[in-house]
């Protein structure tokens, strides 16, 4: 019975990525490889101020002294940094004033992904900053937002228009010395998003960025910086999907969030990069450093992620709870299938008094994949009366996959409470039969059960995103779309 179920699950889950297409847009490349000249080239291309070039060079020199970390539960083929193109920008001849001016090929790509800027613009009230191959092509709604004093633009634009803000906050949460991939990103980052919410402003729309890796052999190094001033609120969404490739592509992003007194930032991600084929060939290497700091008292940062893509995911969205009574949250669904590997989790660093954190992690493994939760809860000596609740669940589909949990807990005082719960379960043959007996086929049944299992996390997502995330979960594990 067991082996039958496994066989069926294997057939159902062993499917290829649905979004594997390549759009043909003219691209301008940096020379292959990484030297100090590459860093200077990027900075020059982007017409950056001196302080930024300095920052990049310091990061680059520091990176040279580091080695790739080996502690994660991942098996990573060596990365040849000299064989990577560190900068690629879609060529554009003139400034784009409207959507009509955008390369039709590019718009078609968005449409294939179901991201119609036009539609987004007209219907959804979602401001979209679409990133293709490192350079922001189009930002919508920025005028509406600017009425509130909200800045939402590409990182490059922010560097040109608001250098003082960039200088003040960039690297303040994730310093370039933080880790190997953070140093690399700091040296060669191409573009990304910048978001600034002024004091007391509640951002009226969900801010959304769609990332997409497009040109072959192009490492992509996004950098996102979100600053919420005192009493500000913003919900930010990041979603991505990439075309099919045979060679591994490197992605090393940085996201920094700063929440001042009484501010709240909600950061949601749906990540669906090319995971490699059934045999584990190709796929994105996703090494991301995401961190937020609750700098002021009563501030709150909430990370929600749905991770279905990438060959390798190495990602720990974290919260530094510095302000008293600040709150950190981490809600995660990570799906691995075929030969995917994920080592993901969070760090909750309690520094302020009466700080609280919640961690809900749902891992789903299928095929021959490996899925690890790694989380650190550190309560410092001064963080009295702090609380953490962690729940880490694993769902296994079939018997060829692995689920692992690595919780690290450091409690530095006696007035704080740390709770950790963990479960591992399987989709049972009984559940599948029950669904099928009601007329629901095997694939839909798995989709239904998996979505139910992940519901606690999915309900944290903004509405627009939740629907997409549900679809993605099903697609990642099933043989057919929708």
């Amino acid at each position, binding site marked *: *019975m067991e082996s*039958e179920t496994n066989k069926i699950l294997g057939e159902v889950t062993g499917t290829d990525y649905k979004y594997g297409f390549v759009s043909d847009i003219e691209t301008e490349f940096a020379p292959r490889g990484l030297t100090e000249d590459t860093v200077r080239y990027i900075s020059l291309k982007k017409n950056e101020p001196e302080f930024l070039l300095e920052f990049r060079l310091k990061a680059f020199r520091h990176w040279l002294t580091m080695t790739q970390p080996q502690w994660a539960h991942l098996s990573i083929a060596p990365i040849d940094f000299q064989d990577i193109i560190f900068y690629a920008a879609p060529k554009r001849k003139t400034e784009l004033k409207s959507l009509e001016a955008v390369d039709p090929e590019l718009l078609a790509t968005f449409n294939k992904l179901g991201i119609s800027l036009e539609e987004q613009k007209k219907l959804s009230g979602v401001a979209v900053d679409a990133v293709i191959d490192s350079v922001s092509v189009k930002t919508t709604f920025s005028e509406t937002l600017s009425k509130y004093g909200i800045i939402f633009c590409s990182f490059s634009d922010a560097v040109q228009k608001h250098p003082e803000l960039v200088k003040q906050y960039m690297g303040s949460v994730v310093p370039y010395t933080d880790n190997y991939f953070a140093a690399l990103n700091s040296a060669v980052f191409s573009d990304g998003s910048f978001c600034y919410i002024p004091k007391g402003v509640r951002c009226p729309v969900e801010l959304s960025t769609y990332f997409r890796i497009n040109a072959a052999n192009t490492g992509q190094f996004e950098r996102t910086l979100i600053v919420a001033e005192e009493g500000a609120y913003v919900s930010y969404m990041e979603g991505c999907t990439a075309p099919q490739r045979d060679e591994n592509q490197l992605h090393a992003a940085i996201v920094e969030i700063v929440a001042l007194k009484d501010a709240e930032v909600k950061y949601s991600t749906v990540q669906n990069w090319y995971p490699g084929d059934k045999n584990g060939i190709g796929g994105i290497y996703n090494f991301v450093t995401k961190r937020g700091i609750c700098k002021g008292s009563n501030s709150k940062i909430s990370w929600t992620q749905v991770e279905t893509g990438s060959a390798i995911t190495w990602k720990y969205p974290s919260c530094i709870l510095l302000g008293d009574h600040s709150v950190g949250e981490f809600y995660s669904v990570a799906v691995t299938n075929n030969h995917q590997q994920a080592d993901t989790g969070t760090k909750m660093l309690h520094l302020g008094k009466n700080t609280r954190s919640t961690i809900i992690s749902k891992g789903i493994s299928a095929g021959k994949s490996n899925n690890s939760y790694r989380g650190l809860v550190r309560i410092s000596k001064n963080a009295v009366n702090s609380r953490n609740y962690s729940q880490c669940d694993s769902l296994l589909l079939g018997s060829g996959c692995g689920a692992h949990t690595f919780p690290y807990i450091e409690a530095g005082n006696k007035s704080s409470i740390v709770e950790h719960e963990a479960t591992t379960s399987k989709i*049972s*043959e*009984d*559940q599948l*039969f*029950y*669904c*099928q*007996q*009601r*007329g*629901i*086929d*095997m694939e*839909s049944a798995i989709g*239904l*059960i998996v*979505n*139910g*299992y*992940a*519901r*606690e996390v999915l309900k944290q997502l903004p509405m627009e995103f939740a629907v997409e995330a549900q679809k993605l979960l099903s697609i990642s594990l099933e043989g057919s779309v929708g």
Partner: protein
Amino acid sequence: MLLSVKNLHASIHGKEILKGVNLEVDQGEIHAIMGPNGTGKSTLASVIAGREVFEITSGEILYKGKDLQKLSVEERAREGIFMGFQYPVEIPGVSITNFMRTALNEIRKYSGLDALSGGEFLKLMEEKKKLVEITSNLTNRSVNEGFSGGEKKKNEIFQMAILEPMLAILDETDSGLDIDALRIVANGVNKLRRPDNAFVVITHYQRLLDYIVPDFVHVLFEGRIVKSGGKELAFELEEKGYDWIKKEQEA
């Protein structure tokens, strides 16, 4: 004939459970299948529903003239076969609303009907809730999660009411029910009865048949139907006990 089971032999892991079952069920009929524990009652239900762990070694099952063995579990369901489970399984996080809407729309699609919208479906749910006398907020909860035994069984009847099957096989739906729940389950069946559908009620006790009056009663013993009759057979069984059947078989 709606269902026609002919000389059915079925086994699990090489062990033969059904040893030549014959059963004919026509539209508008209610059949009760009784018998001691472990004689193959639940196996018969599972085999008709298409559970793959059971292997049919010989014989055939015809449903609306079609060879059921050629249909998958979900195709049988979409063709109108419903099984009320003895032990309904929990599906955490999946709301009954979402579950039943998915199921109903799959079945409708199979029959060439348009999917019901969210609003239409909620209306239908309210209607059916009344029909099967569910007053609690069952419908907002996850499928069977944290349900009492009685709630699970009522939920099965509720699902049956929504899907409106042609052939409903209720596998010991009465077991573990108090008298109120039993009455609700039985009333559900009586209200859903139509001239064009049929019920096969599997039960260990005669008790349920106080509320559901069967047209035919069959006794399943050691993998075969050894006795068939009208509703009076149930009373006879109740009076004489299953030992009577055993002795008769041994004789």
